[in-house]
Each structure stands twice: as C-alpha cells, then as structure tokens.
C-alpha cells in the first residue's frame, strides 16, 4: 500500500490530528526536483505575472493581510507551499487555481518563479501590530518569541531555508495573525507538528504580542526596496 493511500485512509477513519505529522513534509516528487533545477530569470518573470494579480508585481502582498508578502521568502518555503496548495495539503481555495500546473507549469517553471520571487526586494513598510518598542506588550512578545520561536525561525525571524522554515521578518502582521491562529487551532493542515505543539498554550493575547514583535523585527537594509513607492521595473 503506498503512503498517499495510507494517509487518505487514516484521514477517512478519522485519525485527523495524527495525520498532521504526515502532512508537514512529503519528501520527493516535484518539491525535490524543483530545487535541483537551474532557474531561468526571464521565464520566472513571465510565470510570476499570474501571481502578481494578487501578490502584486512587487511581491509585497497587502498590509490588510489578505495576501502575504512573498518577496524575499526562501525558495524552499515557496516551493513547499505551492506544492502543498496544489496537492490539496494546504486549504487555500482562493489561490488553488493559480497554483495548478495549468497556471504555473511543472517543476522547471516553479524553480524559475520561486527563484525570481526570492530575489525581489522586500516592502520597507510591512503591516505591523499596534504596540511599538516602548509598550510592555512589545517586551512580552519578544520574550515569548525568544522562548518559543527562535530555534526554528531564528534570532531575527530569518527562518531556515533548507528545513523549509519560513522567513517571517517583514511579513504583514494581519497575515501572520491568521496563519498562527489556523496553525494553533489545527485549521492549517500542513503546519509543522512541532509548532502546533509549541504554541498550543498560547492565548489570543500571547498570539497578538508575539506577532506584534515579529512584525517589528527589522529586515536587513540590503533586502529592502529603496522606498515604499518602488515599482517593479520588470513589469509595465
């Protein structure tokens, strides 16, 4: 019996939560293949056009959190999420049709587009939480971060590319709030089970404080666009 069939059977008999560990990272297939290919920048620009309909040509998403910032994200993370969405391992009905091979293409096209996105300069004005550095909630958020998050997301939210841990510095507050809540409450099926366990006891206030802190971690200057008015010259 193959692994995929086992997973569907497990889900069917209602083991639900225990399948989360299987859903985090499926090895092999198009993820691995994509990451071994040499990217073509020109084709990346062409493929990204469909993504830009929502994530914008700059890859900055929306501070409202409807669409995340993609610019500067590790290509490994982008490939995993794309593959997860198109394989039905992460529920995202809005993005689903755009992640399909008919829209994006196969492993080579994915390699082209994720490499392009990873190199886009990031939004210097990402959406932030309400508590600035002087607020006690900011300090509490930092403590929560240091105690719970650094091992995987790094001291500055930079993530770990080859482990598929996302860069979260510079991400929009509202987007991270939604994802964190879905991960905590089991709605995001491709979440890392270690994270689900780690944040299980977080109250809503804890969640707001830690994400407020993350949204305010400075992004290295060399990774940022020169200004919030920057327009991606690859598109007209």
């Amino acid at each position, binding site marked *: 019996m193959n692994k995929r069939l086992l997973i569907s059977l497990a889900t069917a008999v209602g083991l639900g939560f225990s399948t989360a560990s299987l859903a985090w990272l499926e090895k092999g297939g198009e993820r691995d293949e994509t990451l071994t290919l040499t990217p073509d920048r020109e084709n990346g620009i062409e493929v990204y056009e469909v993504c830009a*309909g*929502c994530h914008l040509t700059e890859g900055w998403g929306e501070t409202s959190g409807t669409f995340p910032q993609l610019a500067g994200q590790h290509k490994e993370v982008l490939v995993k999420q794309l593959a997860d969405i198109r394989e039905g391992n992460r529920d995202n*009905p809005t993005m689903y049709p755009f992640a399909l091979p008919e829209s994006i293409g196969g492993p080579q096209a994915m390699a082209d587009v994720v490499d392009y996105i990873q190199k886009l300069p990031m939004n210097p004005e990402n959406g932030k939480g309400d508590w600035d550095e002087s607020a006690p909630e900011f300090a509490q958020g930092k403590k929560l971060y240091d105690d719970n998050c650094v091992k995987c997301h790094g001291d500055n939210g930079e993530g770990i590319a080859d482990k598929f841990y996302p860069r979260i510095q510079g991400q929009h507050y509202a987007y991270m709030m939604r994802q964190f809540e879905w991960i905590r409450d089991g709605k995001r099926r491709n979440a890392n089970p270690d994270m689900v366990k780690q944040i299980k006891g977080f109250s809503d206030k804890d969640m707001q404080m830690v994400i407020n802190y993350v949204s305010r971690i400075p992004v290295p200057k060399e990774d940022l666009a020169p200004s919030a008015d920057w327009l991606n010259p690859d598109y007209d």
Partner: protein
Amino acid sequence: MTHSVIKAAVATTALLLALSPAAVLSADGEKLYQTKTCSTCHGKDGKSPIMPMYPKIAGQNQAYTLQQLKDIKSGARNNGQSAAMKGVMHLVSDDEMQALSEYIATMAP
C-alpha cells in the same frame, strides 16, 4: 455673491446632476475591478475566467451581481466556487460592491 458666480455655480451643479450616478460609480468600478483582484480570476474583460468552472460576469445584471457579492461576503451564499471568492471579499465595502456591480453591468458580454 455676483450674478456670474451664481451662474457658474448653477452651471456646475447642473453638470454634476447631468452625470448619472451610475457613470461616476462605473469609473470607480473599473479601477476597483483591477485593484480588488476581480480581474485576476474573472479575466480583465470579465469573460475569460482562469478556471472553466468560474463564471463569465461581463454584462451581468447589476442587481444580481450586487446580491451575489453581498451574499458571498456575508457567507449567506457558500456553495459552488464561492469559497475561492470569500477570501478576498473583506477587501470591498458596500459602496465598492455597488460600484463594482455597476461597472460589471457595463462590460461587453
């Protein structure tokens, strides 16, 4: 107030009244149609959807479109492909839904 100023004011008011509210709204609607990502799924022309099971909407009756927008936003309508659209509906206000429905009605079917 001088007569000429009054005349100018009257003329301006008349001009504003002559422009139907629908025309004003449609102009906004055209921009909203892009910025609120309608075009991404339904096509720039409103009749080339990205998926065959997504509807062509160009020229649809204004009242019908408006009702669907409201129902998908509120969750009253949650069948078919509406889950895909629900994710972006908090981007639009009541006024913007009105403007969008006006614009979509003017698109060539």
